[in-house]
Structures are given as C-alpha cells and as structure tokens.
C-alpha cells in the first residue's frame, strides 16, 4: 500500500516541502522556505518523525543550520553551527554544510554533518551545537586526503555520512578526493576503502585514495552490501570484502556508467537505480544524447534495464546531483528526482513510468522522501 509522502527539496534559492495524498497522486507545495538561501540538504529525523534540520548559507552570509519541530512552519538557528577550531593550522573555515545525517537509532540526539571544505562535525543535542570530529579533521593524512586544490566547482566536499544500522560506531564517508573512508570506532580512526575503484584523472589508475565517491548507499536489507556511483563508474562492494566490483561495465556502452547518484531498493538488496550522465569529452554531465532515463538493476549489477517512459524523448538535458535522487519506502516503491533545471519528477511504479510533480523551481540540490 502507498502512504502520504513528503519531499524535502533543497535548492540554490531556498527550500520547499511537497506533500502528497495517500496515493501520491496530488502534491501540495509548502514554500519557499528561506527564499534566496542556498539549501544544500533538508532532512527529517526518522527517529522522532518530526524534527527537520536544514543546511543553509547564502551568497553573502556564512553557513548555518536551522531546525524545525513543526513541519517547517517555524525555524530556530543552531546556537553553535559547524565550524573548524579557531586557529586551525590549515586556516580552514566551513564554507557550507553539505550533508546532514541523523545519528544511529540508539543515539536519538546525535546528528552528523559533512562540510566543504571536507570536515566532519557531530552534534549531541539535536543539532543545536556542533563539535569537530578530531579523528578526521586533524588526521595526519588530512591534507593528502583533502588537498585544498581538490574538489568540485563549489569546493571540496565531504559529501556523505553513512551509518551501519547494526553498529553506531561503524560509519562510512563518501568524499570527493579521498574516495570512501571507514571507521569502526565512531570517528576516532579512519581507513581508506577504495580497492579497484578507478581514478581516470590521476597518474595512478587505482590508488589507495584520490577517488571521487559521488554517492554511496547501504542496501537497507543487507548493510554489508554497498553501492557506489563514483566519478569513474558504478561499483558494488560486499563486506567483509575490500575490493569494489565495477558493475557499471554492464551498462550500455553508448550510455556509460557515469553519474552522480545511486538509489537502492529498500526491500531488495539486488535492486538499485542510477541516473546516468554524459561523462565524455568535456563532461557535459547531462543526460546522454538528450534522452533522460534511469537504469535499474535487479541482479546486483549483472545487467541493467532502461526506464524512460514519461521522460522527454529528445532534447532533455537533465542533470541530477548527488543528493537529488531518492526512494520512499511505500509499496509499490516511489522514486523521486530533482534536476538542476528545477524540475521535480516521480515514478509511482518503481521506475516504470515518470511524471512531473513541479517545474520552474530553482536549481535543485537535494530531494529527500519521508512519510508525510
């Protein structure tokens, strides 16, 4: 059965919340929220089902975190937003918070945030005050893992924090210049996890670090299975294994396996979706051939099928960023994506067909689906 869903949409010019009816047929917009602010991520705390955290900055002002306990009607700013230590030996200052992650279910007031420049911060009071995680931010490898000149057009990012649902101390990070990092002690120590992941942009093709891990996801029913959409291909890793397998090699050659994001099925660990983009010549990062499509695997990456019904069949130059493709947990599953052209799309039949929910929004950075 389906349920009412809310989509938390962060854009370059503010945030919106779209809420559906029980059948996900009609959608009602709430917003703009903080019109003009750059909203990197807007996340619901699934542990209490009501708290929202928002990572915000503006073109002029520094970064901050806002919290809401009433569905986004009112907001309160964090008393102490994420910030590096005064006198930081590398002179780092947080430019923006990129990724907000609620802590493990056993730690109800804990939140994590990944920032640009790459840094990891923790809140133990529901997001009101934040402290740097010294084990990463002061790691001896910090400048090698996160060189100041590395990164995206918006700066180098620690773009994801992923927590093992079985163990609060076991976490993964996705980063734009050190690939995937893993800790078994909740951030005190870190190791790289990048075996067999390509770096086509460095002299060494398979280095220990240097990879650009655009997006990683644990299979919800099998947290030992990791999916990764990397700058250089689609990969899968089954722990305790250490070596990623490039499952994107099974994608059609004319489409390739470059993209920003990957979305696993919440009930099947062999199923995931990607949204390919053009990574040839000067890297347009748009839908290959101007024909948007998602691709689904139902056999853990052995094969992929194209799903494009409802999308433009020509002249559709979509870009879908790291945080802008997600699934709900309804049955049948709903999939949602937001484009840099301000279009919000959904599929209510596991990718079989697609339709627009909203157009004319600002550049969409993030879309998060949650029960309404």
């Amino acid at each position, binding site marked *: 059965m389906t349920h009412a869903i809310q989509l938390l949409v962060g854009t370059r010019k503010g945030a919106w919340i779209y809420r559906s009816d029980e059948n996900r047929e009609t959608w009602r917009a709430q917003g703009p929220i903080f019109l003009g602010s750059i909203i990197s991520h807007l996340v619901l705390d699934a542990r209490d089902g009501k708290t929202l955290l928002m990572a915000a900055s503006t073109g002029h002002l520094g970064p901050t975190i806002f919290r809401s306990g009433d569905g986004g009607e009112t907001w309160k700013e964090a008393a102490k937003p994420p910030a590096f230590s*005064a006198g930081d030996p590398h002179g780092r200052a947080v430019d923006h918070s990129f990724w907000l992650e609620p802590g493990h279910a056993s730690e109800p007031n804990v939140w994590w945030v990944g920032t640009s420049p790459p840094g990891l911060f923790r809140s133990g009071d529901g997001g009101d005050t934040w402290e740097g995680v010294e084990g990463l931010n002061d790691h001896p490898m910090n400048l090698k893992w996160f060189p100041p000149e590395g990164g995206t057009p918006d700066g180098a990012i620690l773009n994801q924090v992923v927590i093992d649902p079985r163990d609060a101390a076991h976490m993964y990070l996705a980063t734009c210049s050190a690939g995937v990092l893993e800790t078994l002690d909740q951030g005190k120590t870190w190791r790289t996890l990048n075996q067999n992941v390509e770096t086509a942009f460095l002299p060494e093709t398979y280095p220990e670090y240097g990879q650009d891990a655009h997006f990683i996801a644990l299979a919800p029913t099998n947290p030992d299975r990791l999916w990764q959409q990397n700058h250089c291909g689609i990969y899968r890793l089954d722990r305790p294994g250490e070596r990623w397998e490039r499952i994107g090699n099974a994608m059609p050659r004319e489409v390739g396996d470059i993209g920003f994001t990957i979305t696993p099925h919440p009930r099947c660990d062999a199923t995931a979706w990607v949204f390919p983009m053009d990574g040839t010549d000067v890297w347009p990062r748009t839908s290959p051939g101007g024909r948007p499509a998602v691709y689904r695997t139902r056999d853990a990456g052995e094969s992929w099928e194209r799903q494009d019904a409802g999308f433009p069949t020509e002249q559709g130059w979509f870009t879908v960023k790291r945080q802008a493709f997600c699934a709900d947990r309804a049955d049948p599953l709903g999939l949602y994506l937001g484009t840099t052209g301000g279009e919000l799309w959904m599929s209510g039949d596991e990718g079989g067909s697609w339709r627009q929910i909203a157009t004319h929004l600002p550049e969409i950075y993030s879309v998060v689906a949650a029960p309404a």
Partner: protein
Amino acid sequence: MISVLIPSQLTAYTDGVTRVAAAGATVAAVLDDLDRRFPGLKFRVIDEQDRVRKHMRMFIGRQETRSVAAPMRDGDELLIFGALSGG
C-alpha cells in the same frame, strides 16, 4: 557608542531594524556586542578564523576594513554591506 548599519541580508536577526547602536573598542568587540543581542549574527559575517567573509564588506566611516582588530572609537560608524556578487 558605535552606530552600526545592518544590511538587508542580516535584518532577519535584528527584527527588521537597519541601524543599531553597539559598544566595543574594535570591530570584533562591536560584533560580539551585536551577537549577544542578536545571536548568530557575527558568524554569518566573520568566519571561525576571524576573517570577514568573502562576499561581505565593512567600513569604518568611509574607510573599508577587512580586519576585525581594527580599532573603533566612540561616535564611529560601522557600515556592514553585502558585496556586489552572486546571481
């Protein structure tokens, strides 16, 4: 006292008021005084390494400063602006 001009980007902190009085012997001290009354304002303007944020500008009278250590005297005016930038 110091008269401080608040730009539109920060009036959400001052309940819409664009001119406020503050005390302090340096730019940092004036901003600290403002931050006590309008929590969170200073960090939006000055980063954790005490640098004026890239797209903010501050003037003491007609003289621009990028230093929070710049001295302020009673009767001075501190003008805070959002820079011409963005799109």
